[in-house]
């Protein structure tokens, strides 16, 4: 079959033509002034030609494959909308995961597009610049396709109408927002370590792979299709993440401690942010594929184990506190769901107590923790709700200065004690939720004292007013529709009507 191929150049040569010899050294201005950001972090690069993109995708191939992906995706989105695909999902409770995705995750795709556009300009090597440019375009595609896919749900369900506005203001959305703000305000190499390596390579599988498989299992054709379409780019982004790490480590051994510190920091920040996903997988999918704990075992313990064993030859160790994060996998989703159950009157999605068979599933998947700590609490809250006393917590929670999650997580060895750490900086006290977040704060306190903490901002009067309803209006919530318990919500009413029609038919 070999003679039929007409291409004159092999894949390696084509990639080399794209990324070698295109750049030049400036003469009117010194290179360090033209590229002021790529050396101030302390990363030493001797030879930018040492950069290799393993996927070797040239621009013409990039556009060809991307346009094919788009055609496939939009055929599905159109057919989903035309055929009332929302009627085929397992249960309307599922849509609450989509609300969290659209307000919490999709705006991050846009943040990523901004971040990669910025760092793509700031590297003096052509290889990384081309890779960042492609990724910036990918990320823009992701936010657009996600908005298009999920807009269909906005025709029928509440809480999907103001995603970018909410992302900038709502208390729990400051968790993902601050993660990306932190990354984008770092230098270009730290940005790539945070987003391309820690997030895309080590952690993003936990979001896009089992969760999207779960979306398929729950009949959400639109979401699974954009999810896998985005993820097909993600495989390329992951190799960029691994490549940038190897590039830095191979260039100079003085880079090793810097890279290790970034890995420790961004692994921890990433696991904190994925708390939202843990909860989506264990509580928000009516039909479940795998538990958060199982996903953690496959995608962090096993895949991460092989990755860090591979990097050990450079002197890199697995991220600090990985052991704590693995312990947390037994607790995280349950503690997070409890926080949101407390505060669902101030959230743009609904919460509920899982049904009996769902509780049984959690008992089975979490034999060490669920029956001992979490099931009794959920059953108590269920009784209270049935007695007409659905619990809402009216006191605003204290937030971690770094990850911005309410300080509701416990000590992992003692799940009845709330975990918190204190740092002092310039005569003020700052609280963090864990040793991981405390380390991050203590290394760069001047950065984190500037954090826009939603609860502080509410108390300072910067969020629409003094009462909770004032704040929620400032968030653009439709009160009584977007927020509160799922039972009795307009979403549930509509869904039950559809189901009744189906029975009649």
């Amino acid at each position, binding site marked *: 079959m070999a003679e039929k191929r007409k291409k004159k150049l092999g894949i390696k040569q084509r990639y080399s033509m794209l990324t070698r010899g295109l750049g030049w050294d400036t003469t009117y201005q010194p290179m360090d002034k033209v590229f002021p950001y790529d050396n101030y972090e302390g990363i030493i690069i001797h030879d930018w030609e040492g950069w290799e993109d393993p996927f070797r995708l040239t621009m013409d191939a990039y556009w060809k494959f991307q346009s094919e992906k788009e055609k496939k995706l939009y055929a599905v989105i159109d057919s989903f909308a035309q055929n009332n695909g929302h009627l085929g999902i397992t249960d309307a409770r599922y849509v609450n995961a989509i609300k969290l995705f659209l307000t919490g995750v999709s705006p991050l795709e846009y943040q990523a597009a901004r971040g990669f556009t910025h760092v793509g300009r700031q590297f003096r090597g052509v290889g990384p610049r081309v890779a960042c440019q492609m990724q910036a375009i990918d990320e823009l595609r992701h936010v657009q396709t996600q908005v298009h896919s999920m807009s269909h749900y906005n025709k029928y369900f509440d809480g999907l109408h103001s995603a970018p506005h909410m992302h900038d203001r709502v208390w729990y959305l400051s968790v993902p927002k601050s993660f990306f703000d932190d990354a984008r305000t770092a230098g270009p190499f730290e940005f790539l370590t945070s987003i391309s390596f820690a997030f895309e390579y080590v952690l993003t599988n936990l979001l896009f792979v089992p969760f999207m*498989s779960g979306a398929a299992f729950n009949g959400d054709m639109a979401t699974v299709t954009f999810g896998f379409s985005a993820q*097909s780019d993600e495989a390329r982004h992951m190799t960029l993440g691994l490549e940038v790490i190897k590039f830095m480590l191979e260039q100079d051994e003085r880079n090793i401690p810097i890279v290790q510190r970034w890995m420790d920091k961004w692994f921890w920040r990433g696991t904190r942010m994925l708390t939202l996903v843990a909860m989506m997988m264990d509580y928000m999918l009516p039909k479940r594929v795998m538990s958060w704990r199982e996903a953690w075992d496959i995608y962090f313990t096993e*895949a991460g184990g092989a990755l860090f064993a*591979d990097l050990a030859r450079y002197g890199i160790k697995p991220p600090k506190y990985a052991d704590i994060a693995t312990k947390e996998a037994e607790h995280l989703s349950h503690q997070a769901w409890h926080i949101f159950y407390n505060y669902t009157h101030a959230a743009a999605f609904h919460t509920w107590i899982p049904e009996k068979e769902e509780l049984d599933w959690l008992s089975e998947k979490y034999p060490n923790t669920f029956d001992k700590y979490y099931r009794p609490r959920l059953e108590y809250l269920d009784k209270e709700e049935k007695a007409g006393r659905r619990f809402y917590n009216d006191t605003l929670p204290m937030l971690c200065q770094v990850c911005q999650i309410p300080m509701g997580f416990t000590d992992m060895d003692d799940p009845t004690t709330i975990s918190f750490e204190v740092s002092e900086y310039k005569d003020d006290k700052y609280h963090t939720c864990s040793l991981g977040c405390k380390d991050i704060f203590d290394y760069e306190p001047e950065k984190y004292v500037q954090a826009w903490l939603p609860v502080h901002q509410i108390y300072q009067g910067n969020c629409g007013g003094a009462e909770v309803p004032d704040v929620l209006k400032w968030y653009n919530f439709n009160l009584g529709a977007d927020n509160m318990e799922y039972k009795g919500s307009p979403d549930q009413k509509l869904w039950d009507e559809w189901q009744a029609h189906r029975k009649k038919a």
Partner: protein
Amino acid sequence: MSRTVSITLQNNDDARPIIDAIEKDNPKATINLYPAMVKIDCDGRLIVKQETVEELLGREWDVQELHLSIISIAGNVDEEDDYFELSWNI
């Protein structure tokens, strides 16, 4: 210590010959089925050969067409005109 390399593909008509080719060329590989996707794990090394995919597909197949079906990977990537390989240096 795990040395597992892994590739996850969509479970659809485009990907099926690729999955079959991987199974043929990597006898040690384990195929895991999930809703909508297939995760293939292999100890140390996994290869996708153009020749095998073309035989199964009955047409020319550009290795980069893999981009249309891929969901995730674990391992160092080596992509060439006639193969795509994942490996760990452990």
